[in-house]
C-alpha cells in the first residue's frame, strides 16, 4: 500500500481531474448504449392532470405577478395608513390632511428653490 501525501491544493486538483476523466468515460459509455432510443412521444407537460394545450397559462402573467408582489408588500403599509387616518374623527382627518398638504408645500418650495438658485 502506498500512501501519497500532497498539499491540499494539489490533492484537490488531482481528484477533480480524476473526476472529470471518470465522468467523461462514463458519459461516452452511456452515449454508446442509449443514443438510438430517445422518443418524443408524450412530449407535452402535464400540469395538475391536464396537458399544456388545455392549461394555456403555465405561469401567471408578469403583470399579475408584479401586482401580486406590490399588493403583498405594501398591504401592511396601506393597513397602517388606513387605520391611522380613517378614525372617523373630523378633527384628526383635518390634522393629517394639513400635515400632508404642508409636506407637499415643503416639497414644492424645495423644488422651486432648487430650480431658482442651484441650477
Amino acid at each position, binding site marked *: 500500500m502506498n500512501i501519497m501525501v500532497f498539499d491540499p491544493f494539489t*490533492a484537490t486538483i488531482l481528484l*477533480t481531474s480524476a*473526476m472529470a476523466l471518470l465522468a467523461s468515460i462514463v458519459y461516452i459509455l452511456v452515449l454508446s448504449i442509449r443514443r438510438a432510443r430517445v422518443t418524443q412521444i*408524450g412530449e407535452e407537460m402535464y400540469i*395538475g392532470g391536464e396537458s399544456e394545450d388545455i392549461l394555456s397559462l403555465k405561469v401567471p402573467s408578469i403583470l399579475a405577478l408584479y401586482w401580486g408582489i406590490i399588493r403583498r408588500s405594501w398591504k401592511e403599509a396601506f393597513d397602517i395608513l388606513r387605520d391611522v387616518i380613517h378614525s372617523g374623527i373630523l378633527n384628526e382627518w383635518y390634522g393629517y390632511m394639513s400635515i400632508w398638504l404642508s409636506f407637499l408645500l415643503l416639497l414644492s418650495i424645495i423644488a422651486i428653490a432648487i430650480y431658482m438658485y442651484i441650477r
Partner: protein
Amino acid sequence: MDLTLMLISIFVFPGLIFIASLALFSEWFFRKLAARMQNRMGPSYTGPIGVLQPFADLIKLLIAKEVKKQRYSATAIAEIGLIISLSSIIVSLLLLPISPIRLTAPYDIVIFIYFYAVWHVIGLLIAVLAYPNPFTVAGLSRLIAITVVVEPTIFAALLIPTILTSNMGCTPPYSIICASTYSWKLWLESPLSFIAMALGLVSMLIASQAKLGLKPFDIPEAEQELIAGHITEYSGSLLALYNLSHDIKLAFTAIIITYIFLGGPYPYRHLSIAGLALLILKYIVSLTVLTIIRASFGRLRIDQGLNIIMKYGLVPSILGLIVVIIKMFLL
C-alpha cells in the same frame, strides 16, 4: 506517482466497477431485508435468492427502455449532471484506506466534503433542473431544504473523529486516512471520546438516512403527493443512471460509517482474513441499521422531517464537537 495504479483505482478497484457491483449488491440486501421485515418476499427470481435483480433492472433500463423527451427537457445536461454526481462519490473513495493508492493531504476532510457534499449535490441539481415540471420543482425545493440541514450535520459528525485522531498526533493532520485508521482506538481511549464518537455516529446515521432519501425522510420523492418528486420525468437510461448513483451513494455512506466511525478492518490488516471478515461484518451491520430505520418508519412531513434532523442529527453532532473541544483544551 504510479499512473497505472491510479487508473486502476479510479476505474476498477475501488472505483467504478467495484463500487457499482457493491452498490447493486447493497441495493439487493437493502430491498430483501426491508421486504422480509415487512413480511414480503423481496427480489427472489433473478440469480440465487434474487441477488442479480438490481443488476437486471439496471441493464433493462439502460438497454431496453427508451428515454422520453419532453418539450422543455435537456437530456444531455441531465446525463452530465447525474454522471457528475456519480463520479464525485467514486473519486472520494480514493481518500479512504480501501483504495490501493491512498491520496492524502493535511485537512483533506475539506476535500472529502467538497466532493461528497458540494459536487454531488450540484450534479444532482443540474440533472433535476434539466427536466422541469411542477412536481420536479416541488421535489427539488424539498431536496434543497433537506440538504441545507443535512450537509452541516454530516460535516460536523465527520469532524469529530478527524479532530480526535489528529489530536492523538497522527499525520497528516485532519485527514481521512488518520480518522479511518485510528477511529477504533477512539472508542476505547477515554469516556469523553467515547461520548463524542457515539454522538457523531448517531447524527451520521440520521443524516445519512436523510441524504439518501430513505424512509422517514423520503420527502422529496413522496409518491402520494408528488408522483416521484425530483425524478418524476426520468425514464430509460436516465433513470438507470439515477438509480445507480443512488445505490452508489448508499454503498458509499455505509463505507464511510464503516471506516470513519467503526474503524474499518483495523487493528488487523486489510489483506488478512480477520481484517476482511471484520470489514465485511461492519459494512453489513451499518447497512442493516440503515435498512432497519428505513423499514420501521413512515414518511414524515417536510417540517417534521427538518425538525427531526435538527434535533437528532445536527444537535448531537454539535454537542459531539463541543465534547471534543472540551477534551482538547481541558484535559
